């Protein structure tokens, strides 16, 4: 840390250099920088100093905000992938743990629930110790998945407020993850957003082996899943259209625009009204969505 002002090594007129100095610099104590800059010959007078400072601070803040936001969407991508890995691994290991526990103890059932019960037991033999320890790992992995979900729920609304509000934070994070970043998601046509996550089905279709997929991961949204199968294609198209717009607004401006969500709500109501849709049995789910 130096005791110099931001302008110490700046050429007058070099805005980029000045912005870097503002961003990366530091000082232990403030000083009368305007007077010092004038004394040092950086600026002819205080007004000129403030003009240069204005240019430098706005450029620095703008560039850093964009950079930091990019970095934030990547944290979301890591988090949602890690959450899925933890949940999947917890389920796989739970099966193994259940099989082992079933051989040692008088227990029934399976999954993380069983693992949680096994983890409570006291081991009496080395084998029991291992089986119980394995069950504990299952419980921990499952808890980690939940914590990751909490992080996503908290983070997605800052990274992509409109998308998170319309899709729900977890689905928003999945879409960003499938696209790779908020920027690439924002640049995809809505037809692509509609089938993101259905790549396998899409390839099968392109090879002539299946009908074209009507939806990818957005299937988890209540507006698709909760719409009568006959109209799911329309619902998926409407949803994907609005989600693409949301992703673009989030990437380019970040301002909340509740009217788009309202338009989507209307559109879905219209689609569902066509047959007086009742929700089919499999409606609702765990991935969050506007309806939850």
């Amino acid at each position, binding site marked *: 840390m130096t005791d110099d002002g*931001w302008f110490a090594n700046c050429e007058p007129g070099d805005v980029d250099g000045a912005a870097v100095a*503002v961003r990366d610099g*530091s*000082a232990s*104590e403030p000083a009368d920088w305007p007077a010092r800059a004038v004394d040092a010959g950086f600026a002819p007078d205080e007004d000129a100093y*403030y003009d240069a400072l204005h240019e430098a601070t*706005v450029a620095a803040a*703008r560039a850093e*905000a964009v950079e930091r936001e990019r970095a934030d969407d990547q944290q979301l991508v890591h988090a949602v992938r890690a959450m899925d890995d933890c949940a999947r691994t917890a389920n796989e290991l739970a099966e193994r743990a259940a099989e082992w526990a079933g051989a040692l103890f008088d227990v029934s059932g399976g999954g993380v629930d069983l693992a949680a019960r096994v983890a409570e037991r006291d081991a009496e033999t080395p084998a029991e110790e291992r089986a119980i320890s394995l069950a504990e790992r299952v419980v921990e992995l499952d808890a980690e998945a939940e914590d990751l979900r909490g992080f996503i729920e908290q983070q997605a609304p800052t990274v992509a407020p409109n998308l998170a509000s319309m899709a729900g934070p977890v689905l928003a994070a999945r879409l960003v993850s499938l696209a790779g970043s908020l920027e690439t998601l924002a640049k995809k046509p809505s037809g692509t957003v509609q089938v993101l996550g259905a790549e396998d089905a899409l390839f099968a279709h392109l090879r002539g082996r299946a009908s074209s997929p009507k939806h990818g991961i957005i299937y988890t949204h209540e507006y698709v899943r909760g719409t009568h199968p006959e109209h799911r294609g329309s619902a998926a198209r409407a949803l994907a259209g609005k989600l693409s717009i949301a992703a673009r607004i989030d990437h380019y*401006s970040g301002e909340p625009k509740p009217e788009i969500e309202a338009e989507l709500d209307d559109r879905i109501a219209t689609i569902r009204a066509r047959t007086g849709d009742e929700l089919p049995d499999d409606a609702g789910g765990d991935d969050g969505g506007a309806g939850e």
Partner: protein
Amino acid sequence: MTDAPAPEDATLPEGLARRDFGDGETLATQGSPVGPEATDGDWRAWDASRSKLAATYAVGLDPGLTADATVLYLGAAAGTTASHVADVAGATYAVEFAPRPVRDLCRVADDRDRLFPLLADARKPESYAHVVEADCDLLVQDVATRGQADVALRNRRFLADDGRLALAIKARSEDVTDDPSDVFDAVLADLREGYEVLETASLEPYHDDHLAVVARPH
């Protein structure tokens, strides 16, 4: 706000006025508009329910904003309040650490050549002490984060000896479960390590569970 307490008639500095935008009197400043707000010519309504500093005036405290004051503003968010401050005062340094609102803050600063946005953490004053000048006249703090007294103490170094701190304490940021008045007492006690507290007032009905504090360094 129609049933708000009548503002005490603290004399307002140059650049700040009370005007009627069709919905009773509110504070107003002159400058280019920011977001959805009532305007009248180049006067912009400064809404007490959207700004803790405007509410500080509305409940009868004088935060010490003056024309040509040099101001350090902590927790600028998208710049709603900072824009009014910059339209009244002189050099205004606006610190905000969340990247998203900083984009808006930059747009607000585009129209204001003495508003300097800084993407920085107010708990780390060294990270902007090479930019923000010493002897500021006013330190405005609205950070809504844990450790609000600590932030004010760390940033005391930017204030002139006769400068003012205008702080809005949000009780829930310190502790969601504690009684707000206990939280306020604790924050004020910490604050007194570096400041003499001149006035305090609740910001109800404009902002729930917020206390406005005007203080000076000692």
